[in-house]
Structures are given as C-alpha cells and as structure tokens.
C-alpha cells in the first residue's frame, strides 16, 4: 500500500514552533519527499540536535533520537553503522550545525556516510531568544550583539564544497515544490547529502519572508552540478543562489567498510598472530 503524507506524522505530538515559522514548510516537504520515495515510516530514523530544529525528530511517526547539542551527525553515524537498512535523516540549525557542531560536517563528508542532513538557517539562535549565530548578518542587532554583529558570516555552501560533500543543495521555506524535489533527490542520493534551507524566523525577524523573496535567484538553466569550480563561483556570488549546487558519486562509508570486511573476514586471530604462553616458552627457551 502506498504511504500517504499522514503516515509520517506523529499520531500525538504536534509541532510547537511559532505560527509562521519556516520550519513547518521544511517538515512538510520532508514528509512529502518520504511519501514520494515510499520510504516506510518503520524504515526511517530521524536524529536531531538542540534548538528549534531539535524538535524536528519528535514529529515523525517513526523511531527517532533527540540527541546532544551539535552532535546530531556523530549520533546519526553511530545509528547508520548499526542499522544500514534505515533511511536516516538528520536535522539541525545554523547554531547547532555550523557553530557548536560545525566540526563534524567535514568528517561526515570524508566518510561519505549515507545520511541526509537538513540544515534550517534562520541566522539566529531562536530557541534561546535571539543570540547571534554563525550566519547572522553583519550589523544585525541581536541579544549578544547589541551594537551590531561585528563578525563575518560563514559561507556554508563554499564550506560544504571544500569538504567535498557529495550532494549540496540550497533552497528556502518559500519554495516548497523545489524543496520537496531537492529533498527527494538528496534522500535518494547514495552518500552524504546536505539540503540547506533558508527558513525564516517570524519571532526574531532575523530572516524574514521578504528577505528571501528579494534575494534568491535560482541557479541558471544549463548549470552543471558536477562542475565543482562553477559551484564555487555561484557559492561566492553576492546573491544567494538556490538549487542543486553539486553532486558526485563515490563509495559510501558502508561500502568502504564492507570491502575491508570481505578482505579480512575470519583471518588472523586464532591462526597465531597471538601466541599462547606455551608457544612463547617453546620458541624462546
């Protein structure tokens, strides 16, 4: 039987994000993408860190894990190695994913572990009521930058490209159809995929729907997502481009581990790489 959108929603727990939060659209698009791929709810694992995005894992009719601040990726790595058969989604925000947990993205990319990481960027720590984040606009006034943000924002897409993440896309909470398509491709992608969503915060207004409407062109017709240098070029443009930036095929973590296992299974231990004490006596006395 085909799964419906409703099959992915938790039967009791309803989202508690502020009315109008961009994250509702992301949750909806993720669940639609899962339905279109016919990933069964019981074949799904959802992992999240801490922050508004941390609530993400609570809203699925599946088994899920709400973990440690910034550590959703390592947790999902442990989960995926133990249960290769599950489709594992990871949710985070700009604080959880790029500040406290920023160090893990490079290493998930190096392993090319088969996870889809959904980052919802609202350029603010919203759950803790409005502190600066790694993507806060310079000059923006926040609780921790009362005189204006004096640090430069990160360029996440350029970071992911230099880490060699094997699927990189950026979209917004306004483009639900595009987001759903990118999420579907990302979940289908074999390896580590990131879907980076500009997701407005209506409470702190650090990123508004108007901000997104006016500054987000799509990557041009004929753009080649296998051309990494082209991807870098568009990552560094003044305007915030949307779409599939980069995609490459390479072995997943499990394929790499499996090839080592095949090579060595049942090999050395009981065949003498550890000598018994009587063997040692015979050899040396």
């Amino acid at each position, binding site marked *: 039987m085909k799964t419906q959108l409703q099959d992915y929603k*938790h*039967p009791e727990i309803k989202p508690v994000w502020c009315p109008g939060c961009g994250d509702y659209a992301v949750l909806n698009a993720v669940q639609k993408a899962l339905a279109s791929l016919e990933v*069964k*709810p*019981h*074949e*799904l*694992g959802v*992992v999240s860190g801490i922050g508004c995005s*941390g609530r993400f*894992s*609570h809203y*699925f*009719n*599946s*088994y*899920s*894990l*709400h*973990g*440690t601040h*910034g*550590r959703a*990726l*390592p*947790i*999902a*790595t*442990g*989960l*995926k*190695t*133990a*249960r290769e*058969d*599950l489709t594992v989604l990871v949710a985070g925000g700009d604080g959880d994913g790029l500040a406290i947990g920023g*160090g*893990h993205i*490079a*290493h998930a990319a190096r*392993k090319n572990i088969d996870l889809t990481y959904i980052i919802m960027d609202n350029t603010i720590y919203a759950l803790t009521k409005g502190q600066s984040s790694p993507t806060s606009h310079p000059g923006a006034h926040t609780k921790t930058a009362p005189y204006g943000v004096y640090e430069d924002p990160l360029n996440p897409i350029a970071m992911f490209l230099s880490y060699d993440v094997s699927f990189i896309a950026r979209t917004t909470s306004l483009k639900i159809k595009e987001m759903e398509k990118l999420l579907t491709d990302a979940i289908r992608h074999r390896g580590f995929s990131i879907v980076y969503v500009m997701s407005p915060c209506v409470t702190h207004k650090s990123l508004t729907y108007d901000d997104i409407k006016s500054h987000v062109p799509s990557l041009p017709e004929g753009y080649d997502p296998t051309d990494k240098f082209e991807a870098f070029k568009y990552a560094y443009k003044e305007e915030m481009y949307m779409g599939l930036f980069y995609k490459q095929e390479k072995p997943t973590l499990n394929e790499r*581990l499996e090839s*080592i*296992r095949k*090579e*060595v*299974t*049942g*090999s*050395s*231990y009981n065949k003498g790489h*550890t*000598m*018994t*004490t*009587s063997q*040692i006596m015979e050899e040396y006395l």
Partner: protein
Amino acid sequence: MSDQILMKGNEAVGEAAIIAGCRHYFAYPITPQNEIPAYMAKRLPEVGGTFLQAESELAAINMVFGASAAGARAMTSSSSPGISLKQEGISYIAGAELPCVIVDMMRGGPGLGNIAGSQSDYFQATRGGGNGDYRVLVIAPASVQELADMTVKAFDLADHYSIPVMILGDGFLGQMSEPFTLPEPSGKTFDKPWALTGAKGRKPNIIASMRLTPEDLLEKHNLELQKTYQEIEANEVMYESYLLDDAEYVIVAYGTSARISRSAIGELRKEGIKVGLFRPLTLWPYPYKELKAVSDRAKKVLTVEMSLGQMVEDVRLAVQNDSKVDFYGRTGGMLPVSEEIIRKVRSYGG
C-alpha cells in the same frame, strides 16, 4: 586449564569486548590507551564489525550514543583528558537510559598532565563530570585477566540496567603484558524493545534526554533512574578481601595501587604484623557496608591511591571514624612505593 595467551591490558580489553559481542567501537587517539583502537581497527572488520576513528572525543561518545540507540553493543575508550570531553555525552546517554561501555585508562592530570598511569580521576568516574542526577557503574580491575573478565561482564551489566558502565584502569594496567585466559561469552541475551530499529507494528518511540512538560516529568524520570541505581547498589557491589580475617590493620586500595599494597602486605606479614587488603572492584556502587564491617574490627584503615586522596572520601564515609582513617598516595604518574606503605603500617605500632 585452557592455554593462556600474552597480551597488553589494552589489547585484552579489545578482545574481551569482541567476545562480549561488541561490534561497534568508536574512539579518538590518546595515550596510554592507543592499543585499544589499534586492536579494534584490525580485529573488528574480521568479525564483521565497525571501527571508526572519530574526529573528536565528542564525536566518539555520540557515535556510541547512536549505535546504542539502535540496540547495538557499543564501546568507546579514552584516557583522562579525553574522558573529560566525553562527559556531556555520558550524561545524555544516562538520561536517555541507554547501555554502553566506556574504558578509561587514567593518566596524570590536571590538564594535559602526563602519560603515566594515575588514579586521579576517581571523582570524575564515580561522581561524573556530566550534569544531572545520574550514575555510571564503575569497575576497577587490577590485572589483565580481570580487565578481560570485567569487560565481558560490563556489557551484560550495561544491557541489564540500561546504563553506561565504565572500566576504570590506568596507564600501567593498560600497557602491562600478562598471561591470561580468554573469557567465555556469558551467553546472556537482552530484549531491547526501545531500540531505534524501525517502528513496524509498534508505536513510534523517541529516544531523548529532554523532558520539559509536564513540569514534574523530569523529576519522575530521575526517580525512576534512582530506583535502578538502588537496585544496582543492592546487587552489584564487588570487592576482594585478602588476609582480612585476623587483620588489625586494613589497607584499602584498587587497581594498580592494590597490587603494590598486596606485596607490601606480604612483607609486613613476615614481620608478624596482622595486615590485610580490602580491594573494591566496583567503585560505584561502593562496598560501604562491607568495608564498615571490616574496619570495625581494625585499629587503622590505610587508603593507598595513585592520587592525593580521592577514594579516601568514600573510605571515610564507610568507616565513619576519621581517627582510624589514614592516607598515603603518590600523584602525577608516580607510583606508591611498597617500602613507604610498609613504613606507614609499622608506624601504627603493631
């Protein structure tokens, strides 16, 4: 008797974990426990397991978190400064009621300290550096054989109570080679209906350590944890008594310092001094009652540690008579000397 093999303590921990069915091990390099990840990197693929060198101690403990949530037997290992970094993850794992095994081969501190064996992280292990009302079951072996045997047991205890269990050794124990007999698997199996293995035919389950509403949800959860801890205190205390039947003087020591104390006791007994050893094998739960009974019959209780006095606080809690309690310890990776222990006990006028 089955044939013995020769291994370093660190390697014995690795092989014992595999015997116990551990197929998921994640770690970050730190001396003096590097033989554990090296052994697991070589050995785990042979048995179809997964070894990942994590990008940090934080990543390693959180990978354990994820694998354990999936129902796997998972382990990480480190040494003192690395264990400091894991504390947050340990608290979350305890809060989420998941089992796992953590090995700590202690080295000298504070800070980066040095790489020699030490026992100055007794507080860290038994009181926890993580936040919240939680406990970690701590086992302190004193030989390579015991490291191996207790590693197998640690996995069963972790699964039985669904809590983190720590094997607390030190750099000397980890680096020391001794002949030992490989332990047998216990054969025990544990149901894990909560495991994140897909929700087919079951209600969805969320593994989390966050409990926000209603307002007393967290207190109720912590009281449930407390019940588990009380059960552990009632059932899982382990200790060893050596020459205590007639002892007027009791030395209390664990791990490497217990071995040194034991040779001092041998010398003192030759002089006719009635001295014995009380060796806690579990540091939490601590054998308070058992030590109290022994100390009631003794004139003096000497705690020997490779620290400047950490376990001695539990000894005081057990003995409940500070005038009886004495302490001798070396710190910063230095070992207590048998001769010093002998001099101390002689000075009691036995």
